[in-house]
Structures are given as C-alpha cells and as structure tokens.
C-alpha cells in the first residue's frame, strides 16, 4: 500500500454501478486541489469506470490496490 496521506475515504462497497463513481465525483467536487481521496468499491464496473473518468476529468490515479472482494482506488484531485 501507498504511504500517501489520504484526506478522505469513501466506503462504496456493496454499491452497484455507477454508485462508487458518482460518490467519487461528488467528493472530488467538494475537495481542494491536491486532496487525496480513497474509494473502496466491490463493483466490477469501477475497475474500468474510475480510471476512465480520472483520465477524462484530468485527475491523478495514485494507486489501485486489490483487496479481498474489493478494490482501493486512491485518487489525487489535480485541478
């Protein structure tokens, strides 16, 4: 796991597509530039959707870590 400081963690496990992505977008909007947000998601769609949105929206994927039955997505708000 990364040593980056996580400012906000969102537990979206159990939420189906597109819930985890929508939660992330909400958190990105509320945060300052530089904020690091972690999303925990058990939705398979998040594995493609979150990276696609990050690329489109111009933020930075710090790290993705597979856990048991879910994924940690760690994102930095870049703009």
């Amino acid at each position, binding site marked *: 796991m990364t040593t980056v400081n996580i400012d906000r963690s969102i537990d979206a496990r159990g939420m189906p597509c597109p819930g985890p992505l929508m939660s992330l*977008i909400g958190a990105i909007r509320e945060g300052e530039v530089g904020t690091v947000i972690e999303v925990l998601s058990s939705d398979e769609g998040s594995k493609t959707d979150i990276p696609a949105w990050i690329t489109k929206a111009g933020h930075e994927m710090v790290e993705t870590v597979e856990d048991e039955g879910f994924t940690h997505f760690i994102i930095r708000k870049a703009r």
Partner: protein
Amino acid sequence: MDDSTLSLVLFSGTDDKLNAAAVLTAGAAAMGRKVNIFLQYWALDAFRADRVLKDHGVAPEAGADGAEAYQRHGGQHWSEILRQAKGIGDVGIHACSLSMEMFGLRVEDLDPLVDDQEGVASFFMDVDGPVTFI
C-alpha cells in the same frame, strides 16, 4: 472522444428500464456528455411526483427469476441516480406534451427532476445524433 449529446426517449415505465436509462445517463454525464431525455407514455407516468418511488415492476421478459434478481440486487433508486447525474452534468428531462395531455398532467404534478414539457420538434432541437428508445 465523441462529445455528442446522448438523446434518450423513455417510453417504458418499469423500474428495470428506468434504472437502465438512469445508469446510462449517469455514465454519459460523468464523461462530460450532454444528456437530452424525452418522457413519453408509461415512463412519464412513473415520474408523477406522488408515484415516483412506488413499485413500477419489471419488464415482462424478466420473468419471476429475473424480477427476484432485480429486487435482490438493490442499489439506489433510478430517481436518485438521475438526481446525481443532474448534479454532475448537463442533463435535461422533458415531458412529452402529447403524453401530458393524455394523462391530464401539469408540470407541477411531476417530480422536480423533470425540467419542463415540450413538443416532439422541440426535443429534436437538441438532438445531434442517434436517438435511443427505451
């Protein structure tokens, strides 16, 4: 990247089809696409303010097993997904004036998710590509 408008005509009023439409809308809005939705017939009926959260059932092809799988899967209600989509993007939801007349409805009778009512030609003012009918 294609940034054309996603144009949806919602006709069916069952929860599974409305949920599928809401998910498409949220995905398009997240990816920066404008979404233009026209509500006709049974979909419009499902947007009545006093009925939006009631059980609208699922499409006939679901069968008993499919209906049970849909209920079990849970997740957010389609109206909430649409509300989130409107919060993050440019999503217009318009009631078909013909269907409004058929049901004897006014815009005030509908959930606030619906922006206004318009005729079919006005809907096509914002169409710049294919129209998806659900």
